[in-house]
């Protein structure tokens, strides 16, 4: 701006205006606040007008289903958790071939495929990993027994509970799988699930730090890690971007860990599916995935983006190679509704593992009936 014009603007009321642009792509997503801002910025740079709307993650599957069923204001593209895909598949369009032929990592490709078809563009891979203090030795193996042993060996006067663990059914999965149980309704009836819950609950007050406060899990866990109270922390890649000292961090795999991720899908009711797939391709592009990885240490889904990602992202990706996806059933994400409070009841001492598992069994049976 010329100086004269600047002065004139200073003395008058130079206001900004906003021009009307192209019709925005309607986008339902589950990004966090910081992720949303990065998405908005990246899409603005690419000249894509996006009308984004946040879907609460915990009720995302239900909210999205309600929106799709209502067929009003149908989104052009949706970011969903991979566990929601079986429940939503009937209302989604198959991914175009030009999208499926990209250089996806094997873990990412597995997320998007169901029943032999591609249903979307993988956007991020996640799951449970062990974030370890680099000063502490890695567990002898990926087994949970060796992990607990390593954590027990790391105990000291100032660090009595070096294992970080969340009271959540998702975190119970490695213990369930170690006892040859799983989230499937039929598997919860066996003794394996009871043993898994018992072993899991027994860690608290022993080698595992007390459960974080409900509703404040993330800040509690970060505080414990940053204050060195925890040396072995079972968590997901979504926490890596918030760590203060990445050089302190090493990553190890955990046997039987669940692996999942996020997908970009286009519903059948989309008014402009081509624009939906275009936004999906942009969000899954190497450039945007690399930016996400550099900013949040997420695990990219494209081979090229993973190669350009920070070391921590690549280490997390490597640790998740051996992880397994949760059963790909519509009911799977609903199972945690009963499993989580039951697990909390056992950890809190309000119920025995047997009592808790019996309640879960009844709840899952009801869900299974409903699913039918």
């Amino acid at each position, binding site marked *: 701006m010329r100086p004269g014009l*600047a002065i004139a603007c200073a003395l008058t009321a130079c206001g900004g205006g906003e021009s009307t642009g192209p019709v925005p792509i309607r986008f339902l997503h589950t990004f966090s606040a910081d992720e949303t801002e990065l998405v908005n910025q990246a899409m603005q740079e690419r000249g894509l007008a996006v009308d984004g709307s946040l879907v609460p993650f*915990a009720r995302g599957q*239900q909210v999205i289903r309600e929106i799709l069923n209502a067929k009003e204001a149908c989104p052009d593209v949706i970011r969903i958790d991979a566990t929601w895909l079986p429940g939503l598949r009937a209302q989604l369009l198959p991914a175009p071939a030009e999208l499926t032929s990209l250089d996806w990592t094997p873990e990412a490709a597995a997320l998007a495929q169901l029943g032999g078809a591609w249903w979307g563009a993988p956007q991020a891979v996640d799951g449970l990993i062990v974030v370890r203090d680099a000063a502490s030795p890695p567990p002898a193996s990926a087994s949970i027994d060796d992990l607990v042993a390593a954590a027990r060996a790391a105990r000291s006067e100032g660090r009595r509970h070096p294992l970080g663990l969340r009271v959540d059914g998702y975190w119970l999965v490695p213990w369930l799988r170690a006892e040859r149980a799983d989230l499937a309704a039929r598997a919860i009836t066996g003794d394996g699930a009871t043993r898994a819950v018992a072993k899991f609950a027994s860690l608290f007050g022993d080698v595992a730090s007390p459960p974080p406060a409900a509703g404040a899990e993330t800040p509690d866990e970060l505080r414990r890690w940053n204050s060195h109270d925890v040396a072995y922390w079972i968590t997901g890649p979504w926490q890596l971007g918030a760590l203060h000292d990445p050089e302190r961090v090493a990553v190890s795999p955990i046997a039987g860990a669940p692996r999942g991720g996020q997908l970009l899908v286009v519903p059948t009711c989309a008014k402009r599916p081509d624009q939906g797939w275009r936004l999906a391709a942009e969000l899954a592009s190497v450039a945007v995935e690399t930016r996400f990885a550099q900013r949040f240490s997420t695990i990219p889904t494209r081979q090229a983006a993973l190669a350009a990602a920070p070391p921590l992202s690549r280490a997390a990706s490597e640790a998740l190679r051996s992880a397994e996806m949760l059963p790909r059933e519509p009911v799977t994400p609903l199972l945690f509704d009963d499993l989580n409070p039951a697990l909390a009841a056992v950890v809190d001492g309000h119920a025995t593992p047997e009592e808790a598992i*019996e309640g879960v069994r009844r709840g899952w049976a009801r869900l299974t009936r409903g699913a039918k």
Partner: protein
Amino acid sequence: MSTKSGSLRWRVLLVLALAAIVPTIVVGVLAIMRARDDVQKEVRRGALAHIRALGAALDGTLQDSRRTVELAAATWADAPDDARGTQLLIARLRRDVPIVHALSIVDPEGSLRYGDPVPSGADVGSHSFGGYVGDAVRVGGRPVVQLVVQARGRTGELMGVFVATLDLGFVRDLVTAARLGEGARVVVVDGAGVPVATSDGAPIGTSSLAGIDPAVDRALGSSVEGTLSAAGWISAYRNLSGYQSLRGVRWAILHQQPEDEAYALARRTTRDTLIIGGAALALALALGVWFATRLTRPLAALAKRADAIATGHAEAGPPIEGPGEIGVLGQRIDEMAKRIAERHELQTALARGDRLASVGVMSAQVAHEINNPLTTVLGYAKLLQEDKPEGHPDRAALELIASEAERMKGIIGGLLEYARTPRQSDMSIAAAGKLEAPPITEPAQVVRHVGALLEPALKKTQARLATDVQSTKPLAIDAHALQQVLVNLVQNAAQAMTSPGTITIAVAPAPGGIATAITVADEGPGVPAKDRARVFDPFFTTKAAGSGTGLGLAVCKHLIATAGGSIEVGDGPNGKGAEFRLVIPNA
């Protein structure tokens, strides 16, 4: 000269402008820009702070309600079959949570067990992680949200679900009670952009503002807060949607105000700054002109004085006054002008002396040639006169011849005296080329000697001699020459005074300190102004014929000029009589 002075004044003004006024204007403009920017930031900050507080109040009310219902649900789950206890619990819950519009308790299968009919569309038992607050919906035209809380027993098993319909009328009450700026409004919209409440109390309707109001689009598309300036409005927005289900209600709050109103303070600040700045600038300019004039006036006088000096008019003018160094400079130039005037006066006198000396040399040669035959004439006239007896007819003629010859000898003697006086330049440089010491004369001594010499003669006149010697600095003049001058002047004065009076010889330092002034003043009739320019010319006399040769003052002037001094005649003290003023260089 006036052009130069004017130019200097404008240059001073230009310097003042460059040094003070221009930076003041620049700083003023920057200050206005900064103030405007600050006001804009403050407007945005204030609006954001306002909607943060309102948003916290809205969210806090909902979350408090949720926690209360959760406690009730947990209590109920311990005894789900206690119908009476359940009714009491419901009544207490309605009392403790006044925004509960309807409350239902359903079993895990979704069937109603207690309370009001289950609202349609409520998701009552799956994948809600214990509960959630749903999106805003309209029931009977009223905006409400569904609060769903799972009631789980001791073992975590689901025993039932509490479904509470929360009336969002409190949102309207909250925003309408907000104290807002001029023209401002607060709007709360749901996840679809449909207004839930507005601060102006207008009917909210069911039409979405999405796609109409860019601020609503921005608010719903963002996960955080921000501001937007568009269509003449400044909007601050905050998306209240939560990531997790417990805070799952999707809505946003906006504070909007016309930019004209929001930035009124900035406009007033700009206007006031311009007025005050303009007045200050005008005052500064006026002061600048006054200061420049005051500063340049003595400089102009100095320049004028310098011009006068350069053109030979070094006589003292009125004193040049000015502040500080300028005043000192004026004093120094005044002093310098006086010294130049004195030196010029001396040089003029010296030049005149040289001229007269040339005339004197020629006159001396002529006088010398005439003197000898004239002596012969006089001798023979006297011899012839002695030979003639008394009463002889030739005797009178011979006496006339003798007396005229005597008078001619007197004239010739004066001429010889005039010519004999050595010039100072001749005295200073010897024939051999060696420098001789200039003559040094104590003026007081000469004055005393003159007094003693003339005392007898003055007693025969009506004049009395007085002396006033205030300077004893030696003078660069031959003592005999000075004595001859003073004797001549005193004798002339005595002859001029026809009534009793005083002749005063005064010796004082001349201005500038390089010469001494000697005045001879009488109380006689004075020298008429018309004669003053000629009294020093040879053979000019106002005396009666035969009583003066007209060479006395010419000799005096010649002697003084020869010494490098000057002699002038003017009125005596108090305008009475005549005063001859000699200025003679100090030795």
